[in-house]
């Protein structure tokens, strides 16, 4: 049997630096869960189709299951465990609670990280597949939110609450001018 090949990498996860020896085959998701004990990020399909593993990788949302840890040596990662600041949930997390945006909760960490990244993308004026005028400012209506969140599946079907929560977080963010 072929022997595993290991590589030394560093990762900054939720603000804390780590030096790790990883099997080159290990996904970022597996390193977070198995090596660092951060089990918030979930393994759903392990093929990039369900979004349960979504984390923020160097500030952008990405599927942790498709990212080889070794290929992201030196990266900054934020997981669902890192969204709260100083013991306070993020406005998006609060909105999820307020709008009952989950049932079993398995997809929720991925939904939260994905929506956090998505709100940044929208703020920077990134268009989506349902944006009619590619030159216009981004307005996050329900159709835009659904399209931009299509990489996150919820088998409980909590989508109505998820869209409402994301809409509220987007509106509050806009009102706060941040």
């Amino acid at each position: 049997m072929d022997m595993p090949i290991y590589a030394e990498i560093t990762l900054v996860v939720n603000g804390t630096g780590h030096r790790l020896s990883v099997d080159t085959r290990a996904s970022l998701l597996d390193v977070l869960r198995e090596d660092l004990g951060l089990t918030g990020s979930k393994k759903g399909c392990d093929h990039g189709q369900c979004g349960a593993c979504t984390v923020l990788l160097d500030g952008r949302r990405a599927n942790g299951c498709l990212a080889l840890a070794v290929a992201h040596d030196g990266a900054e990662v934020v997981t669902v465990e890192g969204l709260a600041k100083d013991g306070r949930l993020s406005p998006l997390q609060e909105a999820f609670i307020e709008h009952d945006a989950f049932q079993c909760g398995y997809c929720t960490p991925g939904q939260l990280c994905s929506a956090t990244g998505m709100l940044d993308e929208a703020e920077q004026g990134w268009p989506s597949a349902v944006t009619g005028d590619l030159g216009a400012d981004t307005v996050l209506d329900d159709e835009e939110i659904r399209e931009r969140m299509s990489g996150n599946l919820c088998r409980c079907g909590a989508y109505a609450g998820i869209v409402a929560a994301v809409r509220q977080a987007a509106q509050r963010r806009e009102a706060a001018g941040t």
Partner: protein
Amino acid sequence: MRPFAYERATSVQDALERHSDGAVYLGGGTNLVDLMRLGVEEPARLVDVAHLPHDQIELRPDGSLVIGAAVSNSALAADRTVREGHPMLAQAVLAGASGQVRNLATVAGNLLQRTRCPYFQDASKPCNKRDPGSGCPAREGEHHNLAIMGHSPECVATHPSDMAVALAALGASIRIQGRAGERTIPIDELHRLPENEPERDTTLEPGDLITAVEVPPLGMPSRYRKVRERASFAFALVSVAAALDVDDGVVRDVRLALGGVAHKPWRAWHTEDALRGAEMTGESFQRAAEVELGVAEPLRDNAYKVPLVRNLIVRTLTELAERGAS
């Protein structure tokens, strides 16, 4: 998954030198890592080229673009110059995958992604593309979303990219660094039809590294339209990338490429020829579409794609004609 060595290339030359037998270039990994997990790809070594300095989009004075091979799909679609000058390219990229996949995926990786034919992706099944000579169960099996044109007895796979369809319509060129030096080829000569070598998706030689995509200026309204089995995050059943220049009710110029119909993005040269100088009416659009689709050879369960893509061509051209005439 078979263990593999990982090396990060520091330059194009370094990448070529590290690329030896059993090595595969790694971009964003969104398709390759998945195929490795499925046991479809088993590289002995990955040469990571995602960190090479090919992450810029250059707008040249004539309106053409030079897009670095390592530009992420997201960055390409968000780029203001792309959105303004080549909207169908931004639309095509946005029509593919999900937000998180597009953030990881690169331009060259998008071009070189493998087919999503269910038999290719299932290592327990025969597949001439994965295991030459083993047979093609898709021809008689599950093929409702496979090719209607240009297929062979050996392979009925389709190319899954949306972006490549827009680049085909735009007449893009692919800049390649190979062991014998640099060359630039039309995108139409990058992907190939399966013929009796379905294991070869492209004309690339071992070690060849795509470094950039050059896109000529467009200067007419354009649109990418995609039909899929759910509202988002699904591969195309069929898609159309079109640009149309009309003057006084007559087609002055046109670009048209089709996705989801063949082993490569299908530039509809015959339809384009039939349209230049034609009246801009639904009837003439339909006649021109049928010229191209005359060579279609649908399989038992995918004949629906012929009228579907014909109607999509007519609808997209009609929309562009109305926009150009207003």
